């Protein structure tokens, strides 16, 4: 098994994507070679012991050739706030690659990506990998308003993009789930791939079942170790036991998990 490693990475770029959203690019050649879509890393986001825990972030984009890995993130609290103040040349420690990502080798050729808010983060890397494998992609992006629709132009390079915002400032006014329902009415897909708030994941899970289309969901839980050692980050599995999001996930087949919250 090619397990995770601890790396001290130079920041090559930090880009602000409007209020509260950032893209950080790190020099991480080993990680760039070994990581696959849907996997994540635990980033050290502070100096003292407050914050104490590392922060899980999904791999957003990879440049194997240049050995670069980037993360797309939203500033929620002090960890992400600290990260957003790193500048090129600074160093950031991370542990990765972690978890079980999307299963890009499953059969199929027509995929629908459903990303809400910063949940689009892992979907860009996924899109590039799927397109490399010959998939045709359709991409749904949702958010509160236009400023929460992240990097739509870049996503367009991989497939047709449709947008829904709650306030109608971009795309249709409404929920990404309405967009999804529409899309599933209109055409058929081999597989759904989704990441975002639990309400969105639940919607995707429901429609996946209803339509009989397999779906993969990327879950979010508080994490401590990130490697499966502490049993802290569990979600409920269909059989009632608990699965570690950091190890058995963060990406699960829709039927594997019971979503709560």
């Amino acid at each position, binding site marked *: 098994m090619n397990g995770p490693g*601890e790396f001290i990475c130079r920041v090559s770029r930090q880009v602000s994507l409007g209020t509260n959203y950032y893209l950080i690019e790190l020099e991480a050649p080993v990680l760039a070679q070994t990581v696959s879509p849907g996997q994540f890393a635990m980033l*050290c986001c502070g100096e003292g012991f407050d914050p104490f825990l590392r922060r899980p972030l999904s791999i957003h984009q990879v440049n194997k050739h240049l050995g670069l890995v980037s993360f797309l993130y939203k500033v929620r609290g002090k960890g992400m706030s600290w990260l957003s103040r790193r500048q090129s040349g600074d160093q950031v420690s991370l542990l990765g690659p972690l978890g079980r990502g999307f299963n890009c080798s499953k059969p199929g050729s027509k995929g629908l990506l459903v990303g809400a808010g910063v949940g689009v983060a892992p979907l860009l890397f996924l899109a590039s990998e799927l397109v490399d494998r010959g998939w045709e992609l359709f991409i749904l992006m949702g958010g509160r308003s236009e400023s929460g629709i992240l990097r739509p132009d870049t996503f367009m390079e991989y497939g047709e993009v449709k947008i829904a915002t709650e306030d109608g400032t971009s795309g249709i006014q409404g929920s990404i789930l309405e967009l999804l329902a529409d899309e599933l009415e209109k055409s058929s897909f081999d597989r759904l791939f989704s990441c975002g708030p639990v309400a969105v994941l639940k919607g995707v899970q429901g429609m996946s079942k209803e339509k009989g289309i397999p779906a993969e969901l990327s879950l979010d*839980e508080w994490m401590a170790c990130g490697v499966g050692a*502490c*049993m802290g980050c569990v979600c409920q599995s269909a059989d009632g036991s608990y699965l570690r999001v950091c190890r058995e996930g963060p990406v699960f087949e829709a039927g594997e998990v019971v979503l709560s919250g």
Partner: protein
Amino acid sequence: MADLAVNLAGIKMENPVMSASGTFGSGVEYDSVFDIGMMGALVTTGLTLESKVGNRPPRLCETPAGLLNAVGLQNPGVDVFIKDVLPEMLDFGVPVIANIAGSTKDEFVEIAEKFSGTGVAGLEINISCPNVKTGGMALGTAPEVAAQVVGSVVESTDLPVIVKLTPNVTNIVELARAVAAAGADALSLINTLLGMVIDVEQRKPMLGNVVGGLSGPAIRPVAVRAVWQVAQAVKIPIIGMGGICTGRDALEFILAGASAVAVGSAFFNDPLAAVRIIKELDEYCGEHGVDRLQDLVGAVWK
């Protein structure tokens, strides 16, 4: 290289740095991150007689310089553990100590007996888990009750018996004396402090289990105090733990009277914490002309 070795109640370790129960999985999870064979010893996660699903999530909540957890001893049960997990732990070539968590005295004995001849180097009796309804802390706050559990386990096994105590008591010295008198070969100090965090948006507890155990640097002063108090009162060796993140932190415990130390939550802040701590202990010895680290045990009061 200073001599960092320690013989802890018959458990021979090349250095005093162990993993703290429940924080390090079976070691396999960190296998690719650093050389697990460098550790002084490995301690398993808390093991129960039957498999246990654990508490419902959320199980973790970060606190200032600390972590609140309520895992609730999720584990496959002692039989599956011995069959499937223990072999890969033993493969690391360092002593493995089984942390056992019965919900009654008899269960403790039953689990202890199952470990005879399995290759584990010792048993750590967990009568201090704050996250389970039966057993755990309930058996570990009254000296007489704790002593009974310990006495029974000691009689039923040839393995060294380490007793892990809770700091959530009025008088930890009295508790330590009682289990030492009941035959404990060593003590582990401390388990987590009982704590709670509230989500002010939802107006409900952050943890699925409502309350949880507080660990990490936040609790270190409480842990050092406990070791310092207990070390002066009992003759058996102590494994110190609670917020150890650096070699200097480990030294605080050693100077207070611990013969070995365990690293727990620090792994979450720095996966290389244990390796670094071992290096820093060696450096300290070098800089201060200390030949044998064990010479420093209890130096603050001896």
